[in-house]
C-alpha cells in the first residue's frame, strides 16, 4: 500500500492539507516545534506583489512609497529580473502564510515546512519576538492604524498626512528603545485610550513649553538640561515633546513608531530566522522521504530548490550581494547538530558547553535565546568559517590600501566571529544618533548628537534630507552634531529657510 501523499507536480488542496498534517505531526512529535495555528492562503503572483509592497503586512495604510515598491517589483518581475518569493509569512496568531499558486507541489511542501513550521515556531519561541511583539494583536492594530490614518486624510487632506508620514518614515529606524522592552501593542486598549491620550498629551506638552515665569526656586532647578539624559528614541521624543504637533499628528507618529517596534525583532534575527526555517524544511522533507510519503522525484526537486536557497556567491562573483542569511543560518544550525552528534577534538576544546549534548535541546535553546549578533558570537565555529572561507578586511581611509585582517586560520577564527557578529549588530550598523538637548527657553531648537564609530561619518546628502523631515515634525531649528571622539567633526543645521553643514573646513551651504 502506498502512503504517498501526492505524485506529479500539480498541487491540490487535498495534498496541501495532507502535507500540513504530516509535517505538523513530525514537527511536533519528533522535533518539539511549538507553533501558532496555521492559516495558509493561496494567492496569485499579482497578489504576491501586492503583499510585497506592503512589506508583508496583510493590511496597511495608504502611502505613495508602497506604490513605488509595487511598481518596482512589478517591473522587475515582468522583465524576469527577479523571481517572487515562494511564500511570505506573517508574525501573527494564527500565523498567516501566503503560498503562490504557481509553485509546484514539491515547492508547496517545502514552503509549508519552511514557513508554517520553521518561521512559525521561531515567531512563537524566540525571546525577541516574545518580548517585542504581540502576535495575536498585530492584525487588529494594523486595522486600527489604517482606519485612523484614512480618517485623518479625510479631515486634514491627503497631502498633509502624506507629508507627515514621509517624515515619520524617515525616522522610523530611530523609533525603538533599543535597551528597553516596550509594552506590547493591544489595539482595543489603544482605541479606547487614544482620545484620552490626545487630551492628556497636549496638556503635558503645553506644560513643558509654558512661558509663565517660574518662581526663583523653580528657575534654579530649571537650569538642568532637557532631556536630562540623551534620548535614542527620536520618534518617541517627538511624539511626546514636539511643541506644535496636533494630537492627531502625535497619534500618527505613534503608529509609525509602533510598527517600527513590530519590525525590530525581524531586523535583528534575519540570519537566525531564515536559518532556522531552512534547517527545518531540510530535516522535515528528508523525514517525509524516509517515511515514504514523497517520491524520489520530489525529494530531488526539493534538493535542487534547497541548494538554490542556500547558495552563497563568493565575494568576487558578479552575483555577490552580501552574505546570504539563509546560507549562514543554515550552516550554523546544521553545525550545532554536528557538534552535538559528532564532535571533533577541536569542537570539544572550543565548544565544551554543547559538544556531545542533546542536539535538539541545543538548537531549541539557541533559537529561543539569541539574536543574530549573539548567535554568531556563540555558535559560529571554525568549521563553518572554513566551509564558507570567510575573511575580514578593513578599509581605512587613512591607509593607502585595504588590508586583510583575518582569514580562516587559528589566528583568525575569533576575530572573524567578532567582526561577523558586529556586522549583524543593528546598533553598530546603524548610525548612533540621540537627542542631546532642546533649548527649552531659547529658540526651541533641538540638537542631536551622532557619535562616530571608527571615524565613519554620516552620508551628507541623506542626512540633510532626513534633517528636513525632522524639522517638519519639530517645526523649530534642528541641529545635528557629528562627534568624532572628543572633537566635533561636522554640524548639520536645518532651519525654516535652509539646510547647511559646518565642517572642519569651512561651511557648505545647500
Amino acid at each position, binding site marked *: 500500500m502506498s502512503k504517498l501523499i501526492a505524485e506529479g507536480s500539480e498541487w491540490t488542496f487535498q495534498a496541501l492539507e495532507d502535507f500540513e498534517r504530516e509535517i505538523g505531526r513530525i514537527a511536533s512529535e519528533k522535533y518539539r516545534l511549538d507553533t501558532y495555528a496555521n492559516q495558509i492562503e493561496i494567492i496569485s503572483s*499579482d*497578489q504576491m506583489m*501586492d503583499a510585497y509592497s506592503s512589506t508583508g503586512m496583510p493590511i496597511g495604510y495608504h502611502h*505613495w512609497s508602497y506604490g513605488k515598491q509595487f511598481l518596482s517589483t512589478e517591473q522587475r518581475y515582468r522583465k524576469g529580473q527577479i523571481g517572487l518569493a515562494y511564500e511570505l509569512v506573517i508574525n501573527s496568531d494564527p500565523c498567516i502564510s501566503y503560498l503562490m499558486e504557481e509553485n509546484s507541489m514539491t515547492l508547496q511542501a517545502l514552503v509549508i515546512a519552511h514557513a508554517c513550521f520553521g518561521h512559525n515556531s521561531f515567531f512563537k519561541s524566540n525571546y525577541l519576538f516574545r518580548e517585542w511583539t504581540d502576535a495575536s494583536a498585530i492584525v487588529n492594530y494594523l486595522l486600527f492604524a489604517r482606519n485612523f490614518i484614512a480618517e485623518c486624510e479625510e479631515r486634514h487632506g491627503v497631502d498633509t498626512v502624506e507629508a507627515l508620514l514621509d517624515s515619520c518614515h524617515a525616522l522610523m529606524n530611530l523609533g525603538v528603545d533599543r535597551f528597553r522592552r516596550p509594552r506590547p501593542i493591544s489595539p482595543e486598549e489603544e482605541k479606547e485610550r487614544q482620545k484620552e491620550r490626545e487630551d492628556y498629551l497636549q496638556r503635558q506638552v503645553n506644560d513643558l513649553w509654558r512661558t509663565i515665569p517660574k518662581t526663583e526656586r523653580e528657575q534654579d532647578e530649571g537650569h538642568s538640561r532637557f532631556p536630562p539624559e540623551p534620548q535614542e528614541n527620536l520618534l518617541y521624543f517627538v511624539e511626546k515633546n514636539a511643541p506644535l504637533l496636533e494630537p492627531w499628528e502625535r497619534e500618527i507618529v505613534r503608529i509609525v513608531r509602533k510598527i517600527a517596534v513590530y519590525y525590530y525583532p525581524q531586523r535583528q534575527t534575519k540570519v537566525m530566522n531564515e536559518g532556522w526555517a531552512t534547517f527545518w524544511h531540510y530535516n522535515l522533507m528528508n523525514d517525509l522521504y524516509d517515511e515514504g510519503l514523497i517520491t524520489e522525484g520530489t525529494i530531488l526537486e526539493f534538493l535542487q530548490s534547497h541548494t538554490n536557497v542556500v547558495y552563497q556567491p563568493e565575494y568576487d*562573483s558578479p552575483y555577490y550581494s552580501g552574505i546570504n542569511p539563509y546560507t549562514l543560518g543554515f550552516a550554523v544550525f546544521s553545525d550545532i547538530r554536528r557538534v552535538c552528534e559528532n564532535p571533533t577534538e577541536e569542537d570539544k576544546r572550543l565548544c565544551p558547553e554543547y559538544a556531545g549534548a542533546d542536539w535538539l535541546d541545543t538548537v531549541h535553546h539557541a533559537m529561543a535565546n539569541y539574536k543574530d549578533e549573539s548567535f554568531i558570537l556563540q555558535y559560529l565555529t571554525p568549521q563553518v568559517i572554513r566551509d564558507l572561507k570567510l575573511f575580514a578586511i578593513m578599509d581605512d581611509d587613512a591607509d593607502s*590600501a585595504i588590508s586583510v585582517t583575518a582569514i580562516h586560520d587559528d589566528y583568525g577564527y575569533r576575530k572573524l566571529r567578532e567582526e561577523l557578529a558586529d*556586522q549583524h549588530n543593528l546598533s553598530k550598523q546603524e548610525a548612533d544618533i540621540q537627542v542631546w538637548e532642546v533649548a527649552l527657553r531659547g529658540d526651541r531648537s533641538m540638537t542631536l548628537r551622532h557619535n562616530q*564609530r571608527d571615524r565613519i561619518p554620516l552620508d551628507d546628502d541623506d542626512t540633510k534630507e532626513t534633517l528636513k523631515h525632522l524639522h517638519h515634525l519639530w517645526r523649530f531649528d534642528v541641529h545635528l552634531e557629528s562627534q568624532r571622539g572628543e572633537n566635533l567633526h561636522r554640524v548639520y543645521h536645518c532651519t525654516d529657510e535652509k539646510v547647511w553643514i559646518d565642517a572642519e573646513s569651512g561651511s557648505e551651504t545647500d
Partner: protein
Amino acid sequence: MAFLIIDRRQQGKQKSAVNRQRFLKRFKKHIKEAVTDAVNKRSITDMERGEEISIPKKDISEPIFHHGKGGKQRRVLPGNKEFIRGDRIDRPQGGSGGGGGEASNQGEGMDEFVFELNQQEFLDFMFEDLELPNMVRKQLKDSDSYKLVKGGYLKEGIPARLNVVQSLRGAKARRIALGGSIKREIRALKEELEALGEMASERRRELEYQLERARRRLNQIPFLDDFDLRYNNMIQQPTPTTSAVMFCLMDVSGSMTQDIKDLAKRFFVLLHLFLKRHYKKTEVVFIRHHTKADEVDEEEFFYSRETGGTVVSSALDLMKTIVQERYPTDSWNIYAAQASDGENWADDSPKCSELLVKSLLPLVQYYAYVEISSGKEQELWRAYDGITDQFPDSFAMRNVKEPADIFPVFRDLFVRKPT
C-alpha cells in the same frame, strides 16, 4: 492542530491600486515629461499602449540617517581564495561601492527608477489638461436634444401634472392658518357654557348663538381652494450629444512625401484617441484630395499613392456635402483636422478660405489646420491667416516641422483655456 487553508486567488489583486495612484500623483511632473517624450517617439500605430517611465532615483528616494563613506570600514566576506592575513589590496578605482569589499546590497549604481505605466494611465497623462474646444458652449446653445427633468412646482398647469401631495399639504396649512383663531374661540365659548351649568339664562342663549356662528364660520373654510393647487414643473435640459465625427482631410498630391504623410497621420491618430475618450461614439471620415477629393478608407488614405495637382477646395466641398447628408449638427459634434504641406493652386486659396468661413466653420466644433513644412508659410497658410481672428474659438492652425512637434502642437491646440 487546527489549521485553515484559504483560497484567495479570486479576491481582488488591486490591493495596491490606491498606493499606485498616490505614487503617480506625487511624481506627476516627471511622468508627464516622460509621456510627452514617448508620444513623440512612438510609431503611429501603437499610441494605445502603456509606457516604461523612468524617474531619477534621487528624486524619489526616502532618506534616512545612515553611514557614509570614510573612516574605518570593516567587512567580512565569503569565498577567500588567495588572501592571507596582512595582505594589502589596492582600492578598486572608479566605481564606488562595488568590488573590493564595499559591496553593498542596496543599489548597484542604478540611477533611474523604472516602472511601467499601463495603457489607461498613459492616456490619462497624455490628455491631461486638454479639453474639447467649445463643447460646453455648443451643448447649451446649439444643441437640439433635450430631456425633461423635474424642476420644482408651479401654481398653474395642466391637470395631468397636478401634484396631489403638494396641493393637499398646502390646503391643510391654509386650513390650520385660517381656522386656528376660530377654533380657539369655540373652545373658549364651550368652557364658559359648561361653567354656566344647566341653568337657562340670557347669557346662555347669547353664548349658544355665538357658538353656532363660529361653527358656521369654521365650516366655510374650503377644504381645497384654487390657490392650493400645485403642478409639477418640468424643465427642458439640453443633453450633450454623445457622438462625434472627425473629418481627416489630407493632401495627397505629388508634393506630399511619405514622411509628411506620416507626420499628418500621427496628428490624426492623436485626435482620434482624444475624441474616443470623450464621446461614446466616434466616427472618422477620411477625405483625401489632389485636384479632386474622394472619401476613402483608412488604408487607402494613408498609403495609396497618387499624383497630381492640388485643389484644396475640392476636399472642403466634399466635407460640406457629407456633413449635410449624413451628420446633422444637432446630433453630431463635428471636428475636422486638415493636414497639408500648404501648397495649393493660387486661384483656389481664396476660395478655400471663403468656403471655410461661410459654410464649414458654422457647422463644426473645431477645425484644426496643421501645416507640415520646414520652410516659411505656404500658400494655404497665408489664405487661412485671417480666419483665426474671426473664429478664435473654433479655428486654429499650427506649423509642424518634425515628429517631435506633433504632440506639443496637439496639446497647444486643445489645451484647456482659462475661463
